[in-house]
């Protein structure tokens, strides 16, 4: 005969298990970050941040990689942002749900799942072979812009659609035009979600390897931090500098997350 466990006991067991699992996940995350910082922080000093790499990256710092990472990311996001957000507004506010918008949404969603290497190859053939831009920040930025475009469209559109219908009705009922309604009633409420999508895209651009290696290239002084790290590890050139690079990458991403959230709270979402 099977004895039933008392619900209270079952609850204790289940809750205990979930706590354990959750704490384990947090533990793994902390372990990864702490390990990289532990190995990487001692390498970081002023000259590591300000000197260009030498001897395949064995010597010198990663200043050029930091600059390239920041400029490729900035370029990509600045290009993709207006197009992505504009498209999202168009889809959400100016069209009715029909087969064409559904196809657009669906393909944007599917393109967001395509491996980045395919974007890299597209960028290589289109920007380097056809347009002759060469391995450059420009080619990489444009490629990344196309890569993050679906993400920005999707997250922005979701944020816009999530804005309560009543805000629009109120704005219209108070005599607002469509543009005024979008700018003054919809945008301020959607801005949080839109910026979240952009932060996500910034993170993706900073972390991207496969697409960038084909378009920005892997020249020692012309590569992003993620590529620099990958090359140092995979070619077994210098583990020390690899850890240093990884630590700076993590700090940068942490910084982007924290600062962006702070800025939003401080400037955009105030009065809410």
């Amino acid at each position, binding site marked *: 005969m099977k004895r039933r466990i008392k619900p209270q006991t079952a609850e204790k067991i289940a809750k205990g298990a979930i706590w354990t699992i959750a704490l384990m996940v947090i533990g793994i*995350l902390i372990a990864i970050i702490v390990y990289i910082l532990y190995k990487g922080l001692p390498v970081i000093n002023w000259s590591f941040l300000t000197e260009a790499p030498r001897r395949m990256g064995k010597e010198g710092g990663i200043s050029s990689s930091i600059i390239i990472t920041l400029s490729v990311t900035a370029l990509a996001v600045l290009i993709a942002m207006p*197009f992505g957000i504009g498209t999202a507004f168009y889809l959400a506010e100016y069209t009715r749900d029909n087969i064409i918008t559904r196809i657009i949404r669906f393909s944007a969603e599917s393109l967001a799942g395509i491996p980045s*290497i395919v974007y890299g190859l597209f960028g290589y053939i289109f920007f380097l072979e056809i347009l002759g831009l060469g391995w450059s920040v420009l080619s990489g930025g444009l490629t990344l812009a196309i890569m993050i475009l679906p993400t920005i469209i999707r997250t922005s559109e979701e944020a816009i659609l999530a804005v309560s219908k009543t805000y629009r009705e109120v704005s219209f009922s108070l005599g607002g035009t469509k543009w005024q309604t979008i700018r003054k009633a919809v945008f301020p409420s959607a801005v949080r979600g839109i910026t979240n999508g952009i932060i996500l895209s910034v993170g993706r651009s900073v972390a991207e390897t496969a697409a960038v290696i084909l378009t920005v290239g892997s020249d020692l002084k012309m590569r992003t931090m993620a590529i620099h790290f990958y090359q140092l590890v995979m070619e077994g050139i210098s583990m020390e500098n690899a850890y240093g690079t990884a630590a700076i990458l993590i700090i940068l991403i942490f910084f982007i997350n*924290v600062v962006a959230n702070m800025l939003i709270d401080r400037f955009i979402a105030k009065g809410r």
Partner: protein
Amino acid sequence: MKKFKEKLSGRIFLLLALSSISALVLITVFIFVQGLPIIAKVGFFKFISGMEWAPGEGEFGIFPMIAGTVSVTLGAALIGIPVGICCSIFMAELAPEKMRKIFRPAIQLLAGIPSVLYGFCGLIFVVPLIRDYLGGPGMSILAGSIILAIMILPTIISISEVSLIALPRHYKEGALALGMTHWQTILRVQLPAAKSGIVAAVILGIGRAIGETMAVIMVLGNSVAIPESILDSVRTLTTNIGLEMAYASDEHQQALFATGIVLFVIIMILNATAQYITRKKHSKTQNKRKSNETKNQTADR
């Protein structure tokens, strides 16, 4: 002036939309134009069921890669889904406010870590552990599954947490009022009610696992063979592209783009499933709302 602004803004949005859509169309067409000739030449069925991959000798069969993708993704799902759902329950129901405040940004950060770093961690921690304690070369389905499971956690956790939190409060209150314990409420009321959101989260997570490239290149071993155990090395569709794309030319390159098409189709099917599930739920609640309060007849937008 106002009229002009109104028109102008509409035009600008249309212009922006058209250009980004044409960029998306461009890349889709590009992938298909590059990849379809080789599929036509080899034959679709032969391409996806072929066992041999030797582009140098004109052998283009990607079945081992499909098997690899399926096995690694399955592994990642088996580990990642339960853990992810547990974490989302934890965040939505169990965690004290303070923990939640740490947990949520931590999960965000987890999503932002470069995949090469995950791959690297797999390379220096997971692979040696498997090699020393379970045998084999260490680079294996198991290693890839573990790393991918960690990588898909943020997707699963954040989306299912949202769908748990979005449940109306009276679900929980009603169940508790009937004398259920908190755990029974979670298990019998809240999880089933949030099912569609959780399923969508899982499918998106799986999509991410299928699409991941750099991390799995570093831990899977990439051999082109049908795996016999979870300790065997495999190659996925993405790693096949990632490894060889840079070198490839002519037919080899086309074959890699064709691999991309197969991947694209798989991800499209997954997305369509996710959309179908979420939409079904959507229209259901909409219908209910309509019948309940017919006075409020205005539809969305």
